[in-house]
């Protein structure tokens, strides 16, 4: 009987050690990366949150300032102030007998005051937010990879930012 000789291979112990260390380090790097990513996103979200809070305060301050300026303007234009200014400038109330009436074509003295656009009966159904901002990653993948991507990415009537 002939003896067959087979070469048996075995990793050197130091190589196995290196591989384990490598695997461990890979895992560590992965965990560190994920942790770093998470921290970065959390920090950004927190910064955005603080920014939102700050903007809300600014909006509130600006609204207060607008209200203050509006009331200041109204006081400055109040009839007592305007009358005294007019008197100081030499104006006096018009006597009806001194009035001269002229016909001014197109002038409508009784036109109603419009401080805002008139009421619109039809309600626009145009979406105000792009669909891209409302689509999840999964929906996007389905739409763009598994289904044939549409040549028109915008829904009809959708508004561009």
């Amino acid at each position, binding site marked *: 009987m002939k003896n067959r000789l087979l070469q048996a291979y075995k990793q050197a112990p130091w190589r196995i050690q290196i591989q384990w260390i490598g695997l461990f380090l890979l895992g560590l790097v992965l965990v560190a990366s994920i942790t770093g990513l998470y921290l970065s996103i959390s920090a950004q979200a927190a910064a955005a949150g603080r920014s939102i809070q700050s903007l809300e305060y600014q909006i509130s301050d600006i609204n207060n300032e607008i*209200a203050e300026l509006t009331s200041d303007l109204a006081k400055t234009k109040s009839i*007592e102030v305007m009358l005294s200014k007019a008197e100081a400038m030499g104006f006096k109330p018009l*006597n009806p007998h001194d009035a001269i009436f002229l016909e001014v074509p197109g002038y409508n003295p009784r036109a109603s*005051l419009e401080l805002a656009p008139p009421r619109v009966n039809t309600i626009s159904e145009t979406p105000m937010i792009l669909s891209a901002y409302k689509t999840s990653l999964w929906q996007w993948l389905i739409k763009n990879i598994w289904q044939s991507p549409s040549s028109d990415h915008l829904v009809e009537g959708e508004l561009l930012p």
Partner: protein
Amino acid sequence: MKPPFYQRYLIIVIACAVFGLATVIQMVRINYTSYAQELIAKSEEYQGVSKTIYPPRGNIYDRKGNILAANQIGYEVGIDLKYVTDPDSIAFAAASLLDGLDYTYIFGLASTEKQADENRYFVLSSYVSKDKIEELIELKNSYVERRKEQKSLKPSLSGLVWVPMQQRTYPEDTLAANVVGFYDYFSRENAQGAYGVEGAYNRLLTGKPIKVFLPNDPNLVEALPTIDPGASLILSIDREIQKMLEQTLQDAIDWSGAEGGTIIVADPKTGEILGMASTPFFNPNEYWKYGETFTGIIPYNRAIGTAYEPGSVFKVITMAAALDSGVADLNTTYNDTSGVYWVENSWPIYNWNYGAWGLQDMTGCMRHSLNVCLVYIAIDLLGEELFYDYLQAFGFGRSTGIDLANEANYPLRLPDSNQWMVMDLAANSFGQGIAVTPIQMVTAVSAIANDGLMMTPHVVRAVIDKGQQYNVSPQVINSPISAQTARDLTEMLSVSLEEESSTALVDGYRVAGKTGTGQIPTELGYTSSLTNASFVGWGPTDDPQFVVYVWIEKPTISQWGSEVASPIFKDVVEQLVVLMRIPPDHVRNQQANE
């Protein structure tokens, strides 16, 4: 064979397991103890704060866009004990700058012992003006400089805090206050609009408050939802006309020695109130002084809040009923032989001068304001059924529906009532024994000035809500008389003014109208020499654009409406035609003929 240190490991494992189990048991136990809710509430405090956001109250504008009511910023000043380091400086600053506070009181609050687990806050003053806050800021900054120089912790205003809050302001002060009403902003969350449009449209002006949660965790912060401000109102009131009316009314009261009065100007074609002056005048910026101004039974707005016996101006309604029903026409005559009409042969009715005026047509009856003639029309021609049908058609006995809070109404005493007597019919025919509000008279008379169509009186012309303007459409309440009757009556009352050379006549403008002198009943009957003097008129007669109602209460210079109210009407109309840009009749006719 057990490994070395087996027992030690076992003890450690058991100890850890027991500790873990105890922790879990304690966690479960805490959730079921009486402290659980307390702890949950405490944890929520750390998570953030729930806050109700109140939208800014809507503005109120006149018909030309001038602001009659708006919001401005006031500040709440308080002490936050957590940050107080120098009570003495806080007390000194607050006492010297804020009204109604003394040093000792503030020092006591600022020196209150701080509790470690408690945030204590004391309100010192509300709605402090911006000027005062700027002074406080200046003082605070100067203290910072001093601390730097002296390298010490004092003086310091740390802990003295102020937060902005919106407060109602009325830039025109007393102007149109009786129409606008006021908002009791000192009541904070429970504040309500009172009187006028502030009261009538309170919910619309207030808007919808929303409750939001403001988390402390910045990761959970989201933009606040958009809060629509309360709706704004555009009134039909014209600021210039209102000013003119209030000035004229004040002058008239000073001149006549009257107790009070009201003047209303309305557009008969739409029912819009262009101006409504009423005494006493009141500054809604100091609404807490309401009780000092409106003592006793004085209403906030006499024009809608007081029912009184109008006197002869009411003859216009009786005559309208007679002409419209056909029981009389312009040529119908009445022979006043004695100057007295005996009602059911029991009660005498006399003319205003107790005289007999002979044969009179209907224009003469109105021109001389003959009580006996109008009693004759009501009793002998119209009869109670027809008369009261017309009164109800003209809206007497019920509210006009004007969009102002606190409208008064006095019910009609009708023939089916047990208390009604024929004497009531007689007295009602010339405006006695019946109580009406000035706005009821204006609404009724507007039908005569508007070809028989009676419009709903209103002061709100448009509402601005969520960025859109909703214009209010004029509404017809009723058509009590025909257009022909309205024109005939207008002509009759215009001629009667001209023939008596009334002091109400206005140069260049043809107007129609009627005076009224209403006796004031006392507990003993009509024994008072004081009267209600009034005048109702409209013009220009060929195209009426205004109805003016003047009521002067208890004038002392004269008791007659023709001597007190008529000249006031003239005064008002002379200024009104300029403000409304109504050319004299000859100019308008000339333009029409071109």
